[in-house]
């Protein structure tokens, strides 16, 4: 097989070599348990706390409020379940329908335990209207969940507006910033949310390292509910039992620092790649979803009417280009995107949609090489899509 050009960075990204180099000592000569009292433990502890400082700095937070987790899904699950448990599974959770499944499915489980769950779809532009989300949010609402950027479309959501209104009503807000960190500025105070989650592998950090930020108590307000969802240890200030994954956390810390420092350059690079791609799409009769809304700089959700996205994705894969038919979390089997359907996009168009997401290792030359291949495969598939001959009628005997 030929080399693979990777255009699926919303699924995961390659580790930045600088991040890898920072992790390597913790996979070789260094090996302490950060909870141990001896010097090996002390060194590990220091590495973890330095990483915590780096993460906090990248999101405008204080390090004490950052909890390391193994994944964004874990962090999202933990917040939803802890909010529900603190409310004794009473009251209501509000989620956008385009939230990541780690939030939607967790909310569904809360519903099984007795809570009310209100699901709010995005508009045709791929953005959830703040008014729609806020409608009915009041004393019975235990949690409002709104992601900063959608993983399928890259559309930015009105998180600050929603959080400000929720704060007035005393309702905590969870912001899943997993796709946003490293591509747009993320600041917990600017956003005004109560929980924020991020994951290293979406911005050239390692797999298995993520973070949850929980707003601390302040003079005017108590901290939002959060107790350890994992028990059996006192790590992470008793907020997550588990031996800390030191190499992964070290990688997460540096990935955060690099992303924050290099944000303007990264943004410019990713935007240039996407603009090169999207400029060529009209000639292929393709439609970019969510293009009218503010978006992450690197994500393009494109419908190629008249074909099936999986066929195109397979052809591109075989031709050396990795793209996605949607979110990566669904076992390789293609369903029409729930998010696109919720936006009111017809099923056939949803099934004709690809997600192309660039990363820092991509180059304009790669995109230039991709465009004629894309045009060729799209044309080939449309030519094949001519209706097939009708088959012999099924004989119904019953």
């Amino acid at each position, binding site marked *: *097989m030929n080399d693979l050009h990777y255009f699926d960075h919303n699924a995961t990204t390659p580790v930045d070599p600088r991040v890898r180099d920072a992790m390597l000592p913790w996979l070789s000569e260094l090996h302490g348990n950060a909870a141990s009292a001896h010097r090996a433990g002390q060194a590990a502890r220091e590495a973890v706390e330095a990483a915590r400082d780096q993460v906090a700095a990248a999101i405008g937070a204080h390090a004490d409020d950052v909890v390391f987790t193994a994944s964004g899904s874990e962090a999202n699950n933990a917040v939803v379940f802890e909010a529900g448990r603190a409310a004794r599974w009473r009251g209501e959770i509000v989620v956008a329908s385009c939230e990541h499944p780690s939030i939607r499915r967790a909310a569904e489980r809360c519903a099984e335990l007795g809570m009310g769950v209100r699901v709010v779809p995005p508009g045709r532009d791929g953005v959830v209207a703040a008014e729609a989300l806020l409608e009915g949010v009041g004393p019975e609402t235990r949690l409002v969940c709104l992601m900063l950027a959608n993983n399928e479309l890259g559309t930015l959501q009105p998180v600050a507006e929603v959080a400000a209104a929720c704060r007035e009503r005393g309702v905590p807000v969870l912001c899943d910033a997993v796709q946003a960190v490293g591509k747009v500025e993320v600041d917990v105070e600017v956003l005004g949310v109560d929980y924020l989650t991020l994951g290293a592998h979406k911005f050239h950090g390692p797999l298995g390292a993520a973070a949850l930020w929980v707003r601390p108590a302040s003079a005017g307000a108590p901290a939002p509910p959060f107790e350890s969802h994992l028990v059996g240890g006192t790590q992470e200030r008793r907020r997550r039992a588990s031996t800390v994954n030191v190499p992964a956390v070290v990688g997460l810390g540096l990935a955060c620092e690099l992303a924050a420092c290099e944000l303007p350059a990264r943004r410019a690079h990713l935007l240039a790649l996407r603009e090169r791609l999207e400029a060529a799409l009209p000639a292929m009769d393709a439609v970019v979803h969510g293009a009218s809304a503010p978006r992450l700089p690197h994500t393009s959700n494109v419908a190629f009417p008249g074909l*099936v996205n*999986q*066929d195109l994705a*397979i*052809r591109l*894969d*075989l*031709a050396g280009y990795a793209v996605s038919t949607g979110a990566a979390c669904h*076992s*390789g*089997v*293609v*369903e029409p995107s729930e998010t696109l359907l919720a936006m009111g996009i017809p099923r056939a168009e949803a099934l004709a949609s690809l997600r192309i997401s660039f990363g820092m290792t991509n180059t304009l030359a790669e995109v230039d090489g991709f465009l004629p291949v894309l045009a060729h495969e799209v044309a*080939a*598939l449309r030519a*094949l899509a001519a209706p*097939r001959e009708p*088959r*012999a009628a*099924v*004989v*119904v*005997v*019953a």
Partner: protein
Amino acid sequence: MSGLTAVAMSGGLDSSVAAWLLSRAEPVVGLSMLLWDESQRAGGPRRQAQSHGGSGRCCGALDLGDARRVAQQAGIPHYTLRMDDDFRRDVVDPFVDDYLAGKTPSPCVRCNTFIKFDALLARARAIGAETVATGHYARIVEGPDGPELHRGIDEAKDQSYFLFELSREQLSRSRFPLGERTKGEVRQIAREAGLVVAEKGESMEICFVDSEVEDFVAAQAAARPERFAAAAVGPAAIVAEDGTRLGQSSNHLSSPYYRYTVGQRRGLGVAAGHRLYVLRVLPEENTVVVGDEEALAARGLVGERLHWIGEPPAGEVEATVRIRSRHPGVTARIRPRSGGASREVEVEFASPQRGIAPGQAAVFYDGNRVLGGCWITTALR
């Protein structure tokens, strides 16, 4: 992308070795079909899906995890295609229809005709492949008039019966890399290659039925009354050929007529001085007619949906006919009936045959070559 072959991979031993063998020599892509969603499963308790021994079936249920692992071992890309709508329409629903009509269906044939070598072939072409390869024990031989379908060289494993409805056009885009090999050789290849499926057993069951068949049929019919006629739920009446009522099936909680297959001997639940066999199944009366072994004997059969792989013969032909997948075959005269949309055919055996079950395929052979076949409607006594 010229010359790309798509291998249908179920995760079983045979399709895995087919993929492995082709991948040694040419560009190959693995495709697995999601045919039957677990969430759609309905019926009784799950029963043992795998057993060792001879094979009466075409392939097993999908083991996606093993298919992926073998593809990685072979160094080929692998994709999963969701084809459950096609499968339900073209295989599962007609299977239920047949049982409700008192027939004994052969879903593996329809799966080959409509799914693997039609719907999957179309998807394979959509992704840029030209041919579909499977792990069937059968051969495609280039004849003077185009591709011919022949029996696999492993007599015990031959699966050509299940492929009789393919056309020359379909055969020209199909490959059976195991047709020249024995099952033993195939397992040896898997062992030598270290494939993770090398020690896997044979699947003996219908891949989409994980309960007793009658429970599956009843559950499907009940779940979709708009698609299926109301099925009898009470135990079938067991009657002799002269109409004498011998009893009511009661050895099973629900034993309606569609639990019975022509030729069946066990599980009739009636006592008689001699062995009794199912002769006919009468859906309208929820009745099963039983009788002596001799009464099963038929001098021929009438079939419908006659199919010839090549050009149809001008008139009557003599061929070896197999009336079920493990049948050794019998010499017979084949007389197509002229006219009629149902393409009827009369088959007259050189010697009487037992257990002619409506709904099964009768497949015509000239030596090792499959000429075509038909679907049995009635036995000629």
